C-alpha cells in the first residue's frame, strides 16, 4: 500500500498499515548512514523549510540531516532570529513561506494544533515536528523503529511510559501508535502529571513506579520540566527523583532483565534517570537518536519524493 496523505500531523489519524509503511521506509534508509558518501539524489531540487517556533537541537538537526542526505535544499527558520520577533503572526509567516514554494514545511511550535492550522493554510506538505502537548509523530516513529529492531515485532509488547504525561506530546503520539500496533501501554507518574480520562485513550494507569515497570518490555522515561514544580504539580525535584527516578537498583528489583530503557531526550540526569541507567546496557537512548534521521528521511521521501524514489 502507498502513502496518500499530504501531511504528517498526528499518529492518531494514521492506521496500522500507514504506520508500518513509515517504519519500513525508515528501516530501509538506515543503511545510508553507514555509507562513506551519505547522499542519495531522491529529493534533489526539492525545498524543505524547518519552521521552528520552539528551541530544539536534536529534532531540527535530525530533520536537517535527513533532508540533506536526500539532496534536498534545507532552510532553517527559527523564531527569535526571524520576523516573528518583529510581531509577524503565525499565519502571516506561513503565507510568506508558502509564497516561496517549498515542498515540505517541518513545523515545531509550542501551541497544540499549530501544525494542523498551518496545514490548512499551505498547499505543500506539512510535517508536525511537535505541537505543544499534542503530538510528535516522528518521535513515535523512531521509538517504534528502535523497539522493532530490538524485539523484532510489535504485537503483544507492553510499554510503560513514565513521567509528565499531561504535558507530553511524545506520550500521546506513542499511545496512539502503539495501541494501533497491538501493544499494551501503561502510563505512570504522580496523579498530578496524569491527564484526566487518559484511560479513554486505551491505556492502563499506574501510580507507583514499581507497578509500572514490572513485566514490561520497554520503559520510556519522560523528561521532567522544572516548571512543573512551580505550578504546584510536584513538591520538589528531590522527591520526584526519589519516587519516580529510575535507578539500577529499582530496575534490578522490579523490571525484567531484558527490558529496554528509552528516553526522548534531553535527559535530566539524576532526575528521571540515574546516569548508570542512562548509559547502561538497558539503555537504547542513542539508538533512538540515530534512528531519528532514518525516520525523518522516510517521512520526507514519502511526502515529497516522486513515485519510485524510495528505491534510491
Amino acid at each position: 500500500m502507498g502513502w496518500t496523505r499530504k501531511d504528517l500531523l498526528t499518529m492518531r489519524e494514521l492506521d496500522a498499515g500507514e504506520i508500518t509503511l513509515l517504519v519500513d521506509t525508515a528501516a530501509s534508509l538506515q543503511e545510508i548512514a553507514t555509507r562513506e558518501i551519505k547522499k542519495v539524489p531522491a529529493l534533489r531540487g526539492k525545498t524543505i523549510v524547518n519552521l521552528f517556533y520552539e528551541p530544539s537541537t536534536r529534532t531540527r538537526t535530525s530533520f536537517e540531516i535527513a533532508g540533506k542526505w536526500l539532496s534536498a535544499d534545507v532552510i532553517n527558520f527559527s523564531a527569535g532570529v526571524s520576523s516573528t520577533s518583529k510581531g509577524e503572526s503565525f499565519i502571516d509567516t506561513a503565507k510568506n513561506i508558502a509564497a516561496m514554494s517549498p515542498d515540505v514545511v517541518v513545523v515545531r511550535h509550542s501551541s497544540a494544533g499549530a501544525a494542523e492550522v498551518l496545514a490548512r493554510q499551505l498547499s505543500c506538505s506539512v510535517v508536525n515536528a511537535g505541537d505543544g502537548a499534542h503530538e510528535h509523530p516522528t518521535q513515535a516513529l523512531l521509538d517504534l523503529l528502535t523497539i522493532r529492531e530490538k524485539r523484532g515485532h510489535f504485537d503483544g509488547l507492553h510499554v510503560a511510559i513514565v513521567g509528565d504525561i499531561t504535558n507530553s506530546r511524545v506520550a500521546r503520539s506513542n499511545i496512539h501508535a502503539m495501541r494501533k500496533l497491538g501493544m499494551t501501554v501503561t502510563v505512570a507518574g504522580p496523579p498530578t502529571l496524569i491527564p484526566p480520562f487518559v484511560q479513554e485513550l486505551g491505556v492502563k494507569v499506574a501510580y507507583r513506579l514499581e507497578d509500572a515497570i514490572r513485566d514490561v518490555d520497554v520503559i520510556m522515561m519522560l523528561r521532567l520540566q522544572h516548571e512543573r514544580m512551580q505550578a504546584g504539580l510536584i513538591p520538589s525535584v528531590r522527591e520526584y527523583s526519589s519516587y519516580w527516578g529510575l535507578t539500577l537498583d529499582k530496575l534490578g528489583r522490579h523490571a525484567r532483565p531484558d527490558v529496554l530503557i528509552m528516553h526522548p531526550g534531553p535527559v535530566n540526569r539524576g532526575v528521571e534517570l540515574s546516569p548508570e541507567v542512562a548509559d547502561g546496557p538497558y539503555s537504547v537512548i542513542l539508538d533512538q537518536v540515530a534512528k531519528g534521521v532514518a525516520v525523518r528521511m522516510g517521512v520526507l521521501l514519502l511526502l515529497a519524493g516522486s513515485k519510485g524514489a524510495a528505491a534510491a
Partner: protein
Amino acid sequence: MSTLIKHGRVIDPANGVDAVQDVLIADGKIERVGKNLVAPVGAEVVDAAGKVVCPGFIDIHVHLREPGYEYKETVATGTRAAAAGGFTAVACMANTNPVNDNGAVTDYILAKARVEGVVRVHPIGAVTKNLRGEELAELAELAEAGCVAFSDDGRCVMNAALYRRALEYTLPFGLPVISHAEDTHLSLGFTMNEGVVSTEIGLPGSPAAAEDVMVARDILLAELTGAHVHIAHLSTAGAVRLVRDGKARGVRVTAEVTPHHMILTEEAVRSYDANTKMAPPLRTKRDTEALVEALADGTIDCIATDHAPHALAEKEGEFDRAAFGIVGLETAVAVLMDRLVGPGLLPLGTLVSRLSRDPARLLNLPGGSLAAGAPADITILDPERKATVDPVKFRSKSRNTPFGGWTLTGGPWLTIVGGKVVRP
C-alpha cells in the same frame, strides 16, 4: 403614526397569550392586542400570517466594545447586529477601554446609543475599578447614570470579601450583580474544557469545578447578603444543580445560558478552530442536556448570547493564543429555533419567554410584554425561514462564529423598536 400587525401568532408570555391575533401600535407604544383589529386611517399594515409575533427579544449579555475596541465592534454595528438577529434591546458589558467603572463612561455609551444605536442599549457597570478585583467601582454613580446591573464580566472577582461588600453596597439600588463564575486558580492557563478531548488534543483545560466552586460561593454570598446574584453564561451540569438548590432554598440567584453552551460540546474544539474557544469553554453532552432541561424548567431564567466580537487576526492562528469569545447576536434565534424548538427539546413559547419576558424581569427593563401601554418593541419570527449562516453578511464588525455554514430553519423576520421597523 400607527402600525397594525395582522394575522400573526402572538406569543406574549407575560400576559398568557398564545393565539392568532392582531397587534396595533401607536406612538411607539402597544395600543391594543386582539382579534380582527381595524387599521386606523393611515396606519401601516404588516401581514404577519404564518409568522410569530413576540415581545422584543432582550439580550442581557453583549459586548459592544465601545469605547476602546471600535475595531471589533461599535454601538452602531453592534446594535444593527442585534436588530438583524431579532433583538430590540441589549445590555452591554463593562470591559471596554476605559472600563465602564464611572458615570462618565456610562454617559458616553448612552449618548452613542441615542445617536447611533438602532436598538435599546442598557449599560452594565463594573463591580471593581478597572475590573482589577481590588476596590469597588463608583457603584452609586453608575446606578444613577443608568447602569442596569453590575459585572466584572470577563473576569471573576476572586476576593470573596470584596464581592460580599459589592453585593451589600448595591442592595439599595435594586440592581443585580452578574457573576462571571470562574475560579481563576483552577482555570489557570486554560483554553478549553478539561476532559477527554483536552487530554487527547493536548490543550490545557479548565475543569467544570472551576465554575461550580464559584457558583457555589456566589450563591452563599447572595444568601449572606440578601442580594440578587445573576450567574452569567452558566455552562455546567454541576452549576445547574447548585442554582436549582439555591432557588429551592429561596436564595435570590438567577442564571442565563448561551446558545453555544447548549448546542455545541468540547468535541467541536478538535478542529483547533478558535471560533470554538470561549470562557466558559464548551463542555460535554451531559452538560448541554442539563442546560436545556434547566432552561425548560426555569432553573435557568433566560438566554443571553455573550456576543463577544473579535477581529480576524485575534481568532486565526494558534488556538491557545487566540482571544476568548464568539459573536452571537445574529445567529442565536435561528440556532435555537432550529436546534431546540425544531426537534421538540424546547417549546416555542418557552423560548420566547426566555428571550423576552424573563430577561426583562430579571433586570427590571422596560419591554418583555405586549400589554397596552408597553413600549412597542416587537420581534416577529418566521418559523419557515430556511437560511445558511454566512458570516460575511453579518452587520457586526466581527465574524467570529462557530455556526458559519450551518443551514437553519426558523429565524427572525422583522424587528420593531419603539414602533419603528429596524429590520430589514
